[in-house]
């Protein structure tokens, strides 16, 4: 048996392609929902962490540190297998999205915070001196500048979230990886796994390249 028949078995790939595509669709759904939820959560956490009442800042900081310390797989398994014991039953999809966005929110919060803190003090002072309230200062002056700074690290975070969606396969979510392992079992051939790997790479490579491009562009703009 040669290497092509084992890893790149074209008939097997063709036969399992629809299965892989349905898995990719699930992966994309989990990824997009988690990324959006993580961005919203992260923005709120960052603002709380920077500007809320001191006790709220402490809570936000504890949350951020806790969720950055816990392994994602552990969190996911707790949500899916442990929470039902206290009556909280989430579907595999909701479990995966919850775990991913809770963790992504913590990372995103730190990215936003760094972005806001990178804005010179003079921008806050000029806004205040003009009589702009907190909301207008953030929405019109600070955040548009901060978001530009954080686009590369945020994109990096998105890449990580999409990669981590593969963990959803352990809670029986029929995502790309799960479909690939099932297809492998059905066809007794590992080609679907290779196919899944290629799909992940093909999907994420452009994002990785975009991050490098953005980082180079911003590095140049700084000089």
């Amino acid at each position, binding site marked *: 048996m040669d290497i092509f028949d084992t890893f790149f078995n074209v008939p097997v790939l063709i036969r399992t392609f629809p299965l892989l595509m349905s898995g990719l669709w699930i992966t994309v759904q989990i990824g997009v929902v988690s990324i959006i939820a993580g961005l919203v959560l992260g923005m709120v956490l960052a603002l709380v962490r920077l500007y809320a009442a001191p006790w709220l800042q402490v809570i936000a900081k504890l949350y951020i540190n806790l969720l950055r310390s816990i392994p994602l797989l552990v969190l996911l398994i707790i949500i899916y297998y442990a929470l039902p014991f206290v009556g909280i039953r989430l579907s595999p999809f909701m479990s995966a999205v919850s775990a991913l966005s809770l963790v992504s929110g913590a990372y995103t919060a730190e990215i936003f915070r760094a972005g806001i803190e990178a804005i*010179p003090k*003079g*921008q806050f*002072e*000029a806004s*205040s*001196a*003009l*009589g*702009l*309230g907190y909301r*207008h200062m953030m929405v*019109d*002056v600070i955040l*548009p*500048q901060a978001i*530009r700074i954080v686009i590369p690290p945020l994109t990096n975070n998105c890449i990580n979230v999409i990669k981590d969606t593969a963990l959803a396969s352990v809670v029986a979510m029929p995502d790309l990886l799960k479909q690939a392992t099932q297809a492998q079992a059905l066809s007794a051939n590992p080609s679907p796994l290779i196919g899944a790997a290629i799909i992940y790479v093909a999907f994420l490579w452009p994002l990785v390249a975009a991050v490098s491009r953005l980082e180079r562009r911003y590095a140049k703009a700084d000089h």
Partner: protein
Amino acid sequence: MGSTIQITNLRKQFGAFTALHDLDLQIAEGEVVCVIGPSGSGKSTLIRCINLLEPFDPQSKILVGGVPVEAGRNLEKVRADVGMVFQSFNLFPHLTVLRNVMLAPMRVRHLTPVQAEARSRELLARVGIEGQAEKYPGKLSGGQQQRVAIARALAMDPKVMLFDEPTSALDPEMVGEVLDVMKSLAGTGVTMVVVTHEMGFARQVADRVVFMDGGRIVETGTPTQIFDHPQEERTRNFLGAVLNH
């Protein structure tokens, strides 16, 4: 005659260091006051207290147009009436020159975009920047940026304009264009408080000069009194150092 700015007992501490020692200063409507003095004398801290960019001792009192400057609901209103021009311009780099000027009138004064644009273009013309309205601040020279910053502050129709060393960050050849704009502004009856090292400007434009040293007002008077007949030793030393070369 009522004072536009009334400063009573102004004290400012940075930790154990006292930056301002119980200052009193009244500034009348339409008056142009230049604040001079050595670095670290508290000049900038003084004018940054007037719009509460620097918090000050709770025993102190500042009134602008009769309204106390204090944290709370009124603060944004007071700040809207007090324009400020910074040493480092602090334009919003992500907005065009025109948008920089339009932003606060729209958000704070609730002007429509059409009204705000008309008013902003008029002000940009007044400071000689009308041709650059669509550019981003980063494309402008320092002198042009500072003139935009002046237009941005004027767009709020402030009762008072504060200038915090507006020409100190400029290349020498651009100082004149900014001072010219400030001179013409002084002629329009706006109350101005100018922290500056430009003694020529102070002498020519100020109604009153305040000399500060060590967090205190050492001497105050007309430009002639301060520059030609200073009463205090410290004023004479300072002027001797800055004027004799």
